[in-house]
């Protein structure tokens, strides 16, 4: 047994505070990227899952996890990347969604037809995070990062990011 003064919950607590490098108002726990902490006889195994397969933030998450644990004196760390179950925006908590909105990113709208295959649905209501208007339009399915789409508000005319449902 690796002599650890910390429990699994302690370690989870340390890691739960690591912010997303792109959206610093939410943490990797709130985002649903942090999946598991396991303490074995030799090391601490941290399981994470990528939001998108090509998400460039994943390497940063790994580095942050390792340096956070190092600062607590935990040296032997293994990062395990899992793909199943596939990450979904449904894992995002209500608090996290509210934080996103306050940060200027419209949070994923649950139960929308975002997942429709060929054509996007016109029925979805994405609210403007600036003026709260529902009168908005999709500009592009792909925004500033893979996880976001680009919208514009027809009332206040501000463009804004919408966190896509996947």
């Amino acid at each position, binding site marked *: 047994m690796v002599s650890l003064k910390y429990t699994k919950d302690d370690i989870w607590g340390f890691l739960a505070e690591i912010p997303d490098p792109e959206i610093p108002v939410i943490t990797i726990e709130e985002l649903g990227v942090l999946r598991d902490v396991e303490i074995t006889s030799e090391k601490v195994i941290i399981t994470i899952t990528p939001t998108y*397969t090509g998400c460039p933030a994943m390497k940063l998450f790994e580095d942050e996890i390792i340096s956070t644990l190092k600062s607590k004196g935990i040296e032997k760390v293994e990062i395990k990347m899992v793909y199943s179950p*596939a990450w979904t925006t449904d894992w995002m908590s209500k608090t996290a969604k509210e934080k996103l909105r306050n940060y200027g990113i419209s949070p994923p709208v649950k139960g929308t037809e975002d997942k429709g295959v*060929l054509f996007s649905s016109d029925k979805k209501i994405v609210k403007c995070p600036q003026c709260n208007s529902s009168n908005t339009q999709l500009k592009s399915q792909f925004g500033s990062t893979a996880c976001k789409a680009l919208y514009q508000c027809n009332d206040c005319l501000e463009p804004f990011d919408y966190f896509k449902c996947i």
Partner: protein
Amino acid sequence: MEKKDALINYCLRLGDSSLILGQRMAEWCSNGPILEEDIAMTNLSLDLIGQARTLLTYAGELEGKGRSEDDLAYRREEREYYNTLLSERPNGHFGDTVVRNFLHSAFSYHLYQALKNSSDEMIAAHAAKSLKEVTYHLRHSSEWLIRLGDGTTESHEKVQESLDNLWEFTGDLFEMNEVDEILIKEGIAVDLNTVKNDWDKTINEVLDRATLTRPQDAYMHSGRLEAVHSEYLGHLIAEMQFLQRAYPTAKW
């Protein structure tokens, strides 16, 4: 052929197709027709390269010779790539890219739908994950195809020509050999004839809405299974591998 070798080859087929199409989409970076599309196309590239990473890493692990995803992506020769012939077609004009991506993403979409139930845990997980991304890719190219096909006379003629030119590379997508045979028996791979039926439906539905004419099946190019490529892949790889060849020990 052993099951393990078949699976390694299968991972390379999927991974290489994503990698090469991802590289093609990266070529659009700073060349997009409008800013939103520039961003969209590089996002597509990012997804595709991410998908390639998973599969090439897995192929390296299965092989057990210590080759990493980077070794496989950047240190193989042209005749060792198993990507679809369609994925290496040049970007051409925006309409060419839209048609190529549409034909390819419809293929990936239906293939991953089927592979979600693969008996290989990693392939199944990868398919379920990638499907979410590919759904957006298919929608993106479908919507553009309709806009261009059912647009002006000029845009219609241009994409119809793109479609006619690219059609002869679609037969290669569905070819199978011993690798498929072994893996289908194990429940790992899927019969591409079934995927073809679903692909046909999607293609017909979108072409119909785009007021485009589906080309007649005539001569079809072939090569993916034997890693035989068109003249374009060598040039693509030369650019893609430049850094790793020039500075073999380079590290981030």
